């Protein structure tokens, strides 16, 4: 029983990681209707940025805030410089641009920061929670952070004029432009926000998996599964999907199919969702009139 609880909690902790990256994927999808394959590597790079700031002696939360700001600006810049020119190009061109970004970020990080694993500090402390022997303060803290990001996002889109404008620009660019919304600017902002959310994910993940240029490679696949399971256009769905994927993958790996097929669980989930419920658990089915 104790082992089972351990596995459950360790699944929830992993799920929190997947959920935070899935949120960033959903963010970009909502504003551009593309899946950004470079999302994980951008998050990894932001985490190196935070690490550099911390090495320079900044306090944790200052470095945290600075990283969010810089990542957001960098995300907007990437959209302007690299994505805008291929906006109207065929899907394949866009996908290849994303993959190019992935390779570039990965290689540059390896070149600048080397491939030796680095320790990234946790703001929540080490050891175990005082009353709960199954979870570390960091695992608990990062789940809280993921939920907080979700609430903030919800409030932003639901209650602010800027959020409304962004939703309008994504949903119906032509009408949005006619009513005076700068659609291009909204797209850039979507990229910026996604980069910032990715940075949060990176900083929450790194204390667990250690910081190295390949830290997001495995996680991104699980995040895809999470985002698809919850519905690729639904932030709440992405978070729920993340936790479900984390727990299912862990329990299946420990008790049913063995550790060798853990990744397969994620791939089967992706396929299953696409085949039987393409909109995901919480997504809206899109009906197009022809």
């Amino acid at each position: 029983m104790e082992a089972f609880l351990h596995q459950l909690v360790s699944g929830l902790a992993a799920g929190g990681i997947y959920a935070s990256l899935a949120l960033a994927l959903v963010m970009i999808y909502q504003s551009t209707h593309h899946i950004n394959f470079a999302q994980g590597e951008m998050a990894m790079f932001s985490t190196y940025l935070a690490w550099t700031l911390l090495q320079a002696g900044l306090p944790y939360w200052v470095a945290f805030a600075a990283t969010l700001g810089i990542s957001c600006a960098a995300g907007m810049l990437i959209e302007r410089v690299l994505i805008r020119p291929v906006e109207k190009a065929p899907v394949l061109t866009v996908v290849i641009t994303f993959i190019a970004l992935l390779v570039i970020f990965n290689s540059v990080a390896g070149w600048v920061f080397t491939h030796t694993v680095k320790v990234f500090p946790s703001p929540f402390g080490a050891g175990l929670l005082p009353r709960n022997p199954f979870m570390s303060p960091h695992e608990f803290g990062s789940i809280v952070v993921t939920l907080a990001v979700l609430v903030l996002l919800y409030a932003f889109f639901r209650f602010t004029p800027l959020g409304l404008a962004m939703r309008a620009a994504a949903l119906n660019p032509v009408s949005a432009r006619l009513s005076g919304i700068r659609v291009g600017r909204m797209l850039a902002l979507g990229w910026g926000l996604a980069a910032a959310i990715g940075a949060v994910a990176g900083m929450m993940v790194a204390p667990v998996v250690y910081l190295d240029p390949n830290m997001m490679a495995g996680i991104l696949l699980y995040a895809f599964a999470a985002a698809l399971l919850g519905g690729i256009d639904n932030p709440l769905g992405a978070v729920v999907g993340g936790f479900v994927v984390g727990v299912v993958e862990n329990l299946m790996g420990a008790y049913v199919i063995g550790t060798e097929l853990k990744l397969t669980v994620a791939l089967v989930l992706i396929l299953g969702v696409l085949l039987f419920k393409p909109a995901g658990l919480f997504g809206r089915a899109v009906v197009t009139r022809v």
Partner: protein
Amino acid sequence: MIRILALAVAALATALPAHAQKKYGPGVSDAEIRIGQTMPYSGPASAYGVIGKSQKAFFDMVNEQGGINGRKINFISLDDGYNPARTVEQTRRLVEQENVLLLFQSLGTPTNSAIHKYVNARKVPHVLIATGASKWADPKNYPWTMGFNPSYQVEARIYAQHILKTAPNAKIAVLYQNDDFGKDYVVGLKSGLGAKASMIVREVSYEVSDPTVDSQVVDLRGSGADVLLTFATPKFAAQAIRKVGDLGWKPTHYLTVVSASVGAVLQPAGLDKATGLITALYLVDPTDPEASKLAGMKAWGEWMQKYNKGADPNDQFHVNAYAAAWLLTEILKACGDDLTRENVMKQAASLKDVQIPVVIPGIRVNTTASDFATFGEMQLGRFDGKRWVPFGELLSGR
């Protein structure tokens, strides 16, 4: 008639050796011996790139001191990014364009696997390669390939011996990477335990795509084992050591020498959590205060200062690089003026009780035409919170 004469002349010309004693293979002249290597200077394993740079510095020293029997070493080390496809490409360039005599210390198990058949078909010496997989010691099927590192199976058998001696009733748990590297260890461990292989109560693998091995460690702890063997690459080894510590589990914990780096594994895992770990050593630890007393380490220190300036003198990779390059120069010296590919393999396969100056005294290299496993003995070491402290006698895992 003229054609017959021409044939006769040609036959005579080939029958008479051009040089009475000197026999040269590709890449060799009176002035130089050309050797090649692939090395991950970029990519996921680029931490190992210092080995190639360090060996360049070693051959600089050899050349400055007059070379090998008067011939300079022309060392061509190419980047393969730890990508097997590029290893094939670069190796073909070395063999077919650069015409190297031999390949030396090409690094990595997947990378060398990709060229294993090619170099044996072309009959190019592929020697002292930087990997410990047991498949390199297979002279029957692959007579042109020989590894350098102690084989993973030898190391695992040494752990098995130690467990049988110190804890014959132990319950053993194993964490391993699900590939050639990890499986080699499991095979070695089982063969070392022999009839007592049932002492293993649980073995769990992980994939390199897994974000963490936390779940695996939780699983292993649940098996009630009191001995844990971790056969993992550096990042995953660090995660495992940390998780074992976090869980408050206190098994006797053996760690593969591949991940025994203090800076790259034990520090990230937490030195307090790493204290008490056991590994098997074969190189002298440059941070050991006793080390500087060895003549071999003195020469190593002088070389580091003069030829390998700016390199970290505490980094074990430089000892590793020096050891392999030193052994190659011994093999080439033994070849004398018969520098053919056949003779290189012959000399590499007749090393007898060779003590490399930077290898722990007593651990000797032995090879024969039917046994290509270079090292058979290793020294156990325990981590005391700062460095690996050798303990007990040398153990043999042959």
